[in-house]
């Protein structure tokens, strides 16, 4: 049975209107031009239809003004569309500073989602409306693509690196999530739902979930489980850097270059510890964690390091291995405000 037949997609994000407007304007102009060309073609074919078998057409070869016109006018139109499309793209690509982060891991053939609050979901993402959401995504295997038609947003999800996308849902509802980059046998089964909830419903959903702890606290568990805590002491001493106050800060490397300690940098250290070593430290100290930690565990670890934000001395992180109760609720530590906090720190410097 055919249900829900429609010709126009739902639109439920802050950028959808802009995309639709450009699409509609282009549609109107291109339809007008196409119909114009088709009408002129048909008119000419009928008006100049051969009347006698020996008839010859008029032997016009050039008309320079006309030719210049139909070269220049389309070019100007194309440039206008180019500029408009580019403006829209920058808007779609750049997440606002106050966006809340959600981590997404794609694998054949499912979407695994981790919220900073600790909730984990598969093929479903619950988000609040009216609040920008930034997704930090990676893949465990092949290239996938995170596509939400109702939000007019799409981003490839690549193995071995993070890509991001963002959206702000405007209307509460249930929206399709598709994998839009062919990823193998069950590609068409790698689909899910986005649940855009009102802020009240979202809060209810957050409390209903009853996770074991925030993502940062899970990360802290891994930090001890994988032995990171054995070397990375929080006292600025020893062979390994103190990870407090590291996230999104510039790091001076042994090469003399400076790099921002973002998600990708932290991830890289686990897979290739001897690349881009910080100044004052040596290579061949940190073990390689390739094949030891999963992408999800890395995201939890990053979330923990992110939560180690405060200035040294102001907050002594727990090193007991037990998840501190305040993680995930405390502002700036793994809570929804964590990203904005980290971002503002960068700006302050």
């Amino acid at each position: 049975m055919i249900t829900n037949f429609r010709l126009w997609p739902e639109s439920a994000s802050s950028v959808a209107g802009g995309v639709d407007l450009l699409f509609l304007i282009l549609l109107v102009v291109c339809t007008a031009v196409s119909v114009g060309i088709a009408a002129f073609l048909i008119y000419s074919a009928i008006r100049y239809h051969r009347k006698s078998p020996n008839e010859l057409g008029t032997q016009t070869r050039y008309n320079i003004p006309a030719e210049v016109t139909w070269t220049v006018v389309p070019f100007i139109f194309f440039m206008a569309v180019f500029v408009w499309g580019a403006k829209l793209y920058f808007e779609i690509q750049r997440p606002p500073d106050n966006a809340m982060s959600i981590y997404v891991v794609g694998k054949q053939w499912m979407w695994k989602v981790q919220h900073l609050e600790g909730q984990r979901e598969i093929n479903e993402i619950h988000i609040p409306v009216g609040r920008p959401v930034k997704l930090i995504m990676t893949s465990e295997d092949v290239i996938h693509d995170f596509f939400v038609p109702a939000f007019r947003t799409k981003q490839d999800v690549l193995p071995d690196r993070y890509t991001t996308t963002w959206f702000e849902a405007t209307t509460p509802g249930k929206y399709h999530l598709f994998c839009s980059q062919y990823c193998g046998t069950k590609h068409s089964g790698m689909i899910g739902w986005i649940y855009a909830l009102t802020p009240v419903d979202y809060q209810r959903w957050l409390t209903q979930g009853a996770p074991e702890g925030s993502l940062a606290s899970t990360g802290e568990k891994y930090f001890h489980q994988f032995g990171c805590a054995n070397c990375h002491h929080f006292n600025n001493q020893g062979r390994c850097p103190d990870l407090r106050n590291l996230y999104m800060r510039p790091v001076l490397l042994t090469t003399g270059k400076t790099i921002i300690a973002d998600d990708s940098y932290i991830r890289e250290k686990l897979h290739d510890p001897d690349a881009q070593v910080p100044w004052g430290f040596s290579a061949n100290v940190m073990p390689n964690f390739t094949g030891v930690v999963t992408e999800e565990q890395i995201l939890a670890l990053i979330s923990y390091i992110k939560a180690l934000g405060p200035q040294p001395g102001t907050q002594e992180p727990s090193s007991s291995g037990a998840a501190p109760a305040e993680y995930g609720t405390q502002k700036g530590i793994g809570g929804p405000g964590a990203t904005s906090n980290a971002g503002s720190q960068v700006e302050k410097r």
Partner: protein
Amino acid sequence: MIQAVAPKIEKNYLNEKVGLLSWLLTTDHKRIAILYTFSITVFFFIGGFFALMMRLELLSPRNWLVSAETYNKLFTMHGIIMVWFFLIPSIPGTLGNFLIPMMVGAKDVAFPKLNLLSWYIFMLGGGVTVYALFRGGVDTGWTFYTPFSTTYSTTYVVAAAVGIFIAGFSTILTALNFIATIHSMRAPGLTWFKLPIFVWSMYANSVVLILNTPVLAITLVMLAVERIFTVGIFDPALGGDPVLFQHMFWFYSHPAVYTMVLPAMAVISEIVPAFSRKPLFGYKAVAFSSIAIAVVGFLVWGHHMFVAGESVYSALAFSFLSYCVAVPSAIKVFNWTATIHGGSVSWDTPMLYAIGFIGLFTIGGMTGLFLAALGLDVHVHDTYFVIAHFHYIMVGGSVMAFLGGVHYWWPKISGKMYPEGLARLSALIVFIGFNLTFFPQFVLGYLGMPRRYAAYPEEFQMLHVLSTAGATILGVGYVLPLCYLIWAWHYGRDATPNPWRATGLEWKSSSPPPTHNFEVTPIVTAKLPYDYEAMKEELELV
């Protein structure tokens, strides 16, 4: 020359020698064109069969006919066969081979033996690919994206890649042959700006093929090396970069898209003047627009990667260049249209195909503007919108042009006329079937239906059913010409040397031409191309 026994039958390239060996060992460009025609027709119907199976499967939102695994193989095989064994070799291998030497007034191509070798290499590549397909197929999509193709797929990836790799050499050799022929074998007096636009377009096309095919070859070699020897090139698990593959593949494949449509533009640029009895309007603009497409076409590959994690600034550059490459295509459309205006327009089958081509190519090109708009591409990328867009170019464009060209030159190639009424009806069926198949896919795409889905949410079903209905009509439109052209080959009315009263040198030869094309080497005295004015008496036109 020995006269035939029956006085009415003159010796021509078809009857001078007989027997299978005379065909398999021929170095005559016209016979090689026939060999290609036979081969690509077989490949077209294999690829078409896969398409039909896909369309049938998509009648239902669930897998009702084939499994997801089989569906993935179907779209992969459809793509591989249609792109490398039909679209790219179609017009160059058949009409290009037959016509380029005749249009320049030569006896054959510059390297006739190389020309035959091209066909054998093509058949070898095709054979290996078909072997891979029937042994179990490939499920990577024709784009072979890594690391899926190198590490995860368990199908016959390397065999298919080897087939395509081999066929690439045939493409390069044919292109080389055309370039050498056009440079060195033009008849006395036939300067560059007197050449038919067909030759200009095929020249631009050949240059592109020589430059981009080796890139595909090396990309496929790297893919095979990673897959067989687990050398890390593209798979990040081995230390490679998956996006590097996309850069290399599209650096080949975007120009390749133009090598599928430049020959189609070549054909249309001949049909439109011939059936309007008018010189091609804006000849130089059309000639140089082909060159512009060939050059700028190499600079736009990044527009396939706007959502692949490309930096916003390179996306900006590729979007800009993509709009630039749209200009020469627009120029061509306006010039063809202006040629028809004020002509003596006949509604013969080739012209119906040409007019259909201009309309469908316009829609295909215009929807490219949507895709090149960065912010809009984010939504429609990798959806049915893209599928509809490139099928408007490749099926609505290239296949329509191929059929138009086959009808236009059929009297020359076979020496027989095809049944005009039936042919016009088929052209109409193709046009209707095509639009019904692919127009709904634009709507599907904007709704968000992703590509390469074996099953899909129910709300898309209505449009899929429409599309499948269109595909069956389109199928009829393709089978009909196959039937009546074979019929006409045997039973058609004999064709005169120049049934359309066109200006090209190929029409100065008999139908079908003798083995050496011209009894005497033609000397071109006309000052201009498509010079109906000068040839008025000769063509009996008033």
